[in-house]
């Protein structure tokens, strides 16, 4: 390679060539195959140097003891020096990939102001239909997914899925998607022109789905919603209380593949066989492959009515100023989702707090914009200090937001320690084209410690559920039964036909298939009605009624059923010498099951 070619090649790599030199180099390359070969060798050298450079850094590899695809090399031969060398190469390759990937985080679709800025550019939000105030097409305006309407006058929402939702005056309605909406307050009439289409309305953990049948849904009060079917039939569905996305990190059940960058490793799990560990150094993280969408409110991370992020972590974060340790981050401009430790200027926090170390939960809400619930790690009011939560021991974390209550909260080790209430009806706007990261973000932030059992629910876990999950986590028991890919997250509990008027209650106990906790901690199912309990796991039903418990649920299975349980009362017949049967209300754990008719 002569000096002139070398000079031009270097100039090309450094972006310093002018138009004339670029043209000269091009002509040269096109006319001389040997020159072209030398030039390509130079380019390849440039690309490979990054990888080799990583080898100059000290790499400590901790061998995982599980069947992770990344660790196959470890198990083929028990030659540890070779294995570590192979693992090093993988880690190194991943590191360099991360550096190439992340040092310069600009994108074509997204403009980044500078390398030091976090993404702030807006990404288009998916349109889900048109809003016609007072039914007037002349005033029609497009509706973005995740927006809401609090209309004083009647209005029509015409969806992209060809449903028509008429909002009565005073209705607060969330336009979650083109196929479903969220009724917070008021009344809606739904009609669907094409029977091939469908539309659903969610009310908390219930939804009404229609394949062409017109219906009216009206909120009566905070806990009751009335359904009237005008023709045909609609289904009342109960939410399957399972996560939408779940990473047990055991090597075979993750919702989406993850790819390591830098010194991010699979390690033995705190729950189950696997977890992921990140070393806190810039660039180290796992990236999730897939789950993205073209616009905000699309892809696997598009949440609308509610969200819970749950995980078990062990952290050694030092809490120092400007040291951020993300557990999860997806950076779709301001429509980001974030959970992690921070000690920054608290630019986005709601409510405001003094500067200092926090556990931060950030999402974008339609009316408030992006904000973070920054829980101070100050040791006050039951909150942990940095030393307490980053003590290298496992801690259960749950961050929730529910647009039906407006409450955003953070729980640690089963206790909700910090919360803030937004106005009811603010939908989440999340999801989009950017890759999600676990344990780090690009080349800027990296978690110090281990993450396990990362789960994303499209509903808010209750305080009781969080407490139980944390108890099971503390015992090392897995509490999550992953949703099968074919499942929608909803199961039909009742079909309502023309002429029926149904009142849905938030936690119905009227059909008392109840569950008693035994002294051993297991549950016994005791059906006291002819309406059997739907088994959320097997989709079968439990046999109805009987003087003795028909089935016993073991500790493991209790975890699977636990999300379906709530506290209520049942009427029990207590025999006394004076009376054959004295009915008494007894506090009981009951299954969320059916609706009651009026």
């Amino acid at each position: 390679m002569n000096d002139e070619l070398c000079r031009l090649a270097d100039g090309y790599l450094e972006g310093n060539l002018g138009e004339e030199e670029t043209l000269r180099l091009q002509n040269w390359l096109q006319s001389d195959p040997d020159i072209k070969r030398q030039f390509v060798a130079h380019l390849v050298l440039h690309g490979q140097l990054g990888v080799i450079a990583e080898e100059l850094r000290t790499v400590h590899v901790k061998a995982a003891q599980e069947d992770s695809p990344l660790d196959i090399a470890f198990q083929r031969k028990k030659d540890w020096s070779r294995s570590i060398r192979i693992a090093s190469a993988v880690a190194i390759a991943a590191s360099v990939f991360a550096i190439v990937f992340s040092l310069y985080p600009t994108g074509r679709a997204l403009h980044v102001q500078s390398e030091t800025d976090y993404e702030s550019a807006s990404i288009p939000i998916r349109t889900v239909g048109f809003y016609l105030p007072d039914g007037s097409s002349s005033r029609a305006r497009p509706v973005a997914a995740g927006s809401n309407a609090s209309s004083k006058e009647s209005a029509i929402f015409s969806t992209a899925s060809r449903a028509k939702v008429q909002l009565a005056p005073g209705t607060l309605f969330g336009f979650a998607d083109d196929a479903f909406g969220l009724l917070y307050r008021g009344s809606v009439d739904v009609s669907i022109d094409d029977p091939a289409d469908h539309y659903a309305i969610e009310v908390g953990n219930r939804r009404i789905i229609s394949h062409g049948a017109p219906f009216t849904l009206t909120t009566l009060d905070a806990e009751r919603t009335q359904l009237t079917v005008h023709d045909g039939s609609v289904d009342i569905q109960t939410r399957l209380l399972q996560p939408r996305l779940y990473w047990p990190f055991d090597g075979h059940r993750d919702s989406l593949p993850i790819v390591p960058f830098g010194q991010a490793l699979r390690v033995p799990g705190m729950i189950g066989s696997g977890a992921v560990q990140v070393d806190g150094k810039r660039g180290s993280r796992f990236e999730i492959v897939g789950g993205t969408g073209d616009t905000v409110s699309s892809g696997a991370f598009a949440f609308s009515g509610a969200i819970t992020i749950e995980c078990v972590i062990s952290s050694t974060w030092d809490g120092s100023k400007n040291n951020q340790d993300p557990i999860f981050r997806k950076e779709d401009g301001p429509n980001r989702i974030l959970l992690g430790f921070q000690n920054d200027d608290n630019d986005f926090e709601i409510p405001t707090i003094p500067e200092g170390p926090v556990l931060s939960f950030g999402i974008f809400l339609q009316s408030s914009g992006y904000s973070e619930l920054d829980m101070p790690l100050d040791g006050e009011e039951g909150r942990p200090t940095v030393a307490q939560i980053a003590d290298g021991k496992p801690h259960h974390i749950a961050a929730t937001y529910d647009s039906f209550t407006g409450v955003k909260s953070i729980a640690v080790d089963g206790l909700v320690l910090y919360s803030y209430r937004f106005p009811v009806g603010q939908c989440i706007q999340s999801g989009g084209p950017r890759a999600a990261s676990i344990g780090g973000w690009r080349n800027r932030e990296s978690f110090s410690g281990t993450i396990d059992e990362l789960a994303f629910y499209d509903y808010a876990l209750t305080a009781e559920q969080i407490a139980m999950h944390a108890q099971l986590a503390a015992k090392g028991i897995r509490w999550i039964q992953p949703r099968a890919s074919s499942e929608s997250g909803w199961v039909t509990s009742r079909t309502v036909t023309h002429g029926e008027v149904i009142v849905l209650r938030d936690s119905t106990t009227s059909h008392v298939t109840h569950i008693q906790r035994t002294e051993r901690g297991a549950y016994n199912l005791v059906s006291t009605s002819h309406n059997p309990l739907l088994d959320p796991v097997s989709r079968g039903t439990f046999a109805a009624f009987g003087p003795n418990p028909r089935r016993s649920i073991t500790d493991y299975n209790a975890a699977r059923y636990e999300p379906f349980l709530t506290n209520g009362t049942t009427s029990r017949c207590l025999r006394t010498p004076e009376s054959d049967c004295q009915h008494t209300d007894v506090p009981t754990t009951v299954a969320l099951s059916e609706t009651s008719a009026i």
Partner: protein
Amino acid sequence: MNHKTLDRTAISEEFLRLYTRDQFRIAGFVRALIADPADAGDVIQETSLALFRSFHQYERNRDFTNWAFGIARHQVLKHWRLKRRDKLVFSEALIDDLADEAIAMLSTDQDRFQALRECIGRLTARQRDLIKDFYGNGVTAATVAEQWNCSVHVVYNALRSVRKTLQRCIDGRSLET
């Protein structure tokens, strides 16, 4: 878990294994053809996602590396097509040729990779530090210049000199073998 889920999980695992094995080559290929690290980073990201999305089309009797290179090549060309208005860009035909040449080189790059490692071992400590900082730690030339108490041009010249030395070293080893 149903069969469909099992299949999908198995496919994801297979993808992850193959992708992890080859990601360096893919990244090296993209970065070789797109000098700007920012653009290269974006194309690498697009490529990784494109690979995952189209993995169901991957024919198992084909070599994964070659298949992945094909997709990476497509992403690189797409990138340059979008930059076509820029007069400082090579013609598409030339980029196509360069991509072919680079794929041919990287497809059999194991010896070359090892040779490069050994050649770096022969550099001075200061040169190795430069490589480590500039490529490994992402330190900019300006920062290195500050550390060295010299101008940025001196750093660029040093980088140029190191690359030239390494290229000669690799070529020399190739001749020896």
